[in-house]
């Protein structure tokens, strides 16, 4: 391959600023990048150009479309009107600060005005004055860009921050859960489910719901953070809604949370779902399980008595559960049965299961197999709470043959 054309181009670029390049060296570098390392030609050209820029001490030319702040005043904007790519000046209140995730970041949090809230990042390199939570500031010439589908504000060295003396109260309007989109938002919702946490940095996760829908929430462990009480209603100001695997979840670690009086009738979580169908699958992890004895943990342990958070726990407690799929012929529901429901359905008590687990050569597997034989393929009616296709049954009974149904169907089939 011939690199002289590219080299010519690079040479011309640099001769404009009075620099002479070593053509042989440049060609050699290009060849190495392209032939030895499989770099795309355009990328190789860019890479070599950058290297020469550095060598000659030339500031890199900004890519096409980059905006130069060039001294002119940027537009004063309300938070809700900010779009990715804008250079903005705004006045707002720092409603939340969170621990920076990288040493390159001096501060991050949420700044809000009466139109809404937006995440911001202050780069460590900007040498900006520290902002305090709860205070108002005017930010001039900050840049809005997009990170993981969410618009946020970057405070860099060209941004001016001035404290604004005001004590204006700021009460954000809650957004219905079904209208949430990635970004900063406030909701008024009830804790409808609490889940096992899946990570040791996680304080709590579960499901929040209001009249319009439900959403997963998470609180990460940070100083002074407290768990929410299942069944209680909260006003949650300036939570961060993130999208992951096409699902939205609400990070409320940095949010202002206020417990509210009263109750909310949550959508889909009314607690009186009833499904009649056949149990078409029993998932691994059903049967007899061991749970972590550490107060408030209760996670299922592995076979080696290992808790994902508290490691080896040989002083475990036994429990029964069945996880599987309940299929009514039109729709398949994810089914979860707890100990009392499992005992009633299988006729096997926890004590009997324990006896098998400890004395049978197959151990806990034997309990799984026996329970599967007893319930797989059977017709049952399960009642409980169904949220997002997960049915937490508090009763589950085998269906009995009803001869009146038989007669009705005979008439229906014969009567046409």
């Amino acid at each position, binding site marked *: 391959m011939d690199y002289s054309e590219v080299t010519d181009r690079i040479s011309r670029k640099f001769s404009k600023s009075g620099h002479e390049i070593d053509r042989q060296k440049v060609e050699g570098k290009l060849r190495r990048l392209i032939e030895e390392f499989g770099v795309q030609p355009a990328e190789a050209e860019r890479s070599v150009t950058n290297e020469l820029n550095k060598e000659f001490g030339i500031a890199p030319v900004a890519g096409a479309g980059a905006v130069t702040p060039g001294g002119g005043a940027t537009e004063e904007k309300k938070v809700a009107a900010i779009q990715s790519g804008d250079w903005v000046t705004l006045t707002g209140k720092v409603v939340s600060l969170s621990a920076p995730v990288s040493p390159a970041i001096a501060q991050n949090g949420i700044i809000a005005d009466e139109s809404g809230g937006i995440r911001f990042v202050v780069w460590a390199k900007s040498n900006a004055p520290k902002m305090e939570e709860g205070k108002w500031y005017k930010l001039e010439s900050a840049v809005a860009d997009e990170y993981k589908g969410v618009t946020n504000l970057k405070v860099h060295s060209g941004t001016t921050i001035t404290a604004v003396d005001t004590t204006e109260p700021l009460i954000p309007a809650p957004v219905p859960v079904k209208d949430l989109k990635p970004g900063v938002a406030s909701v008024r919702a009830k804790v409808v489910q609490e889940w096992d946490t899946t990570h040791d940095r996680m304080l709590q996760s579960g499901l929040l719901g209001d009249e319009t829908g439900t959403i997963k929430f998470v609180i990460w462990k940070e100083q002074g953070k407290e768990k929410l009480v299942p069944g209680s209603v909260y006003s949650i100001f300036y939570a961060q809604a993130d999208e992951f695997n096409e699902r939205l979840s609400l990070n409320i670690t940095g949010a202002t949370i206020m417990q509210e009086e009263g109750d909310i009738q949550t959508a889909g979580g009314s607690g009186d779902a009833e499904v009649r169908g056949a149990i078409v699958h029993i998932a691994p992890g059903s049967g007899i399980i061991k749970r972590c004895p550490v107060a408030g943990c209760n996670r299922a342990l592995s076979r080696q008595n290992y808790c994902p958070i508290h490691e080896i726990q040989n002083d475990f407690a036994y429990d029964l559960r069945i996880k599987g799929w309940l299929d009514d012929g039109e729709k398949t529901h994810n089914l979860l049965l707890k100990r009392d429901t499992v005992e009633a359905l299988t006729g096997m008590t926890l004590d009997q299961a324990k006896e098998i687990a400890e004395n049978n050569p197959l151990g806990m597997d034997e309990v799984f197999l026996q329970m599967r034989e007893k319930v*797989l393929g059977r017709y049952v009616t399960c009642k409980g709470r169904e949220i*997002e296709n997960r049915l937490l049954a508090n009763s589950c009974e085998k269906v009995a043959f009803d001869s009146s149904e038989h007669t009705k169907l005979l008439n229906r089939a014969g009567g046409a």
Partner: protein
Amino acid sequence: MSANPSEMGGGRREGSFEREPARRVFAAELRECRYQFKDGTDEKSPTFVLLPTGERSNRIFIVGTLTEKTRQGEQNVFYRGRVIDPTGTFFVMAGSYQPEAMQQLAKIEAPAFVAVIGKPNLYQKPDGSYLVSVRVESITVVDKDTRDLWTLDAAERTLDRLDALREGTSPDIVKAKEQYPIVDPVVYRKMVYDALAQIKM
């Protein structure tokens, strides 16, 4: 406290994942399937057989009598079985790609009432005739009550499909009318009636 979504069989991992429901269908209807299609172009897109009564089916639930089973193959062992319902015979199979199902089937002594969850597949034999076989996901021995309950369930679902077929305009129904022009709802109603009549009071 309660359910961890990641433990609950895949709901979360795949975002909007929904498990395909298991259709209730009598052997005499399944036997008549001649049209199989894929929903989507992905390698992992689900395959459906189109039931003559106008519904797509990726998975079925059947309860009947396992009358015989045979072990086949040398290196790749698999089991075949025949499961009888009031209208005819289902051909079921489980191979080494379904080790759980194969072990379950291997253990069962025929004859026995069995509940089978599986995936229907349509094959054309060298002589040009078609065979619908059911690849077993799981098979368990059940009692006669479950068999009777299933017969009611399959009867009701079949009648529902026949009602929908009469009026319906869904893409699957339109396709079924095109693929199965000779399907006579009267014949299927009679099949349902005869199946119900076999349940002893």
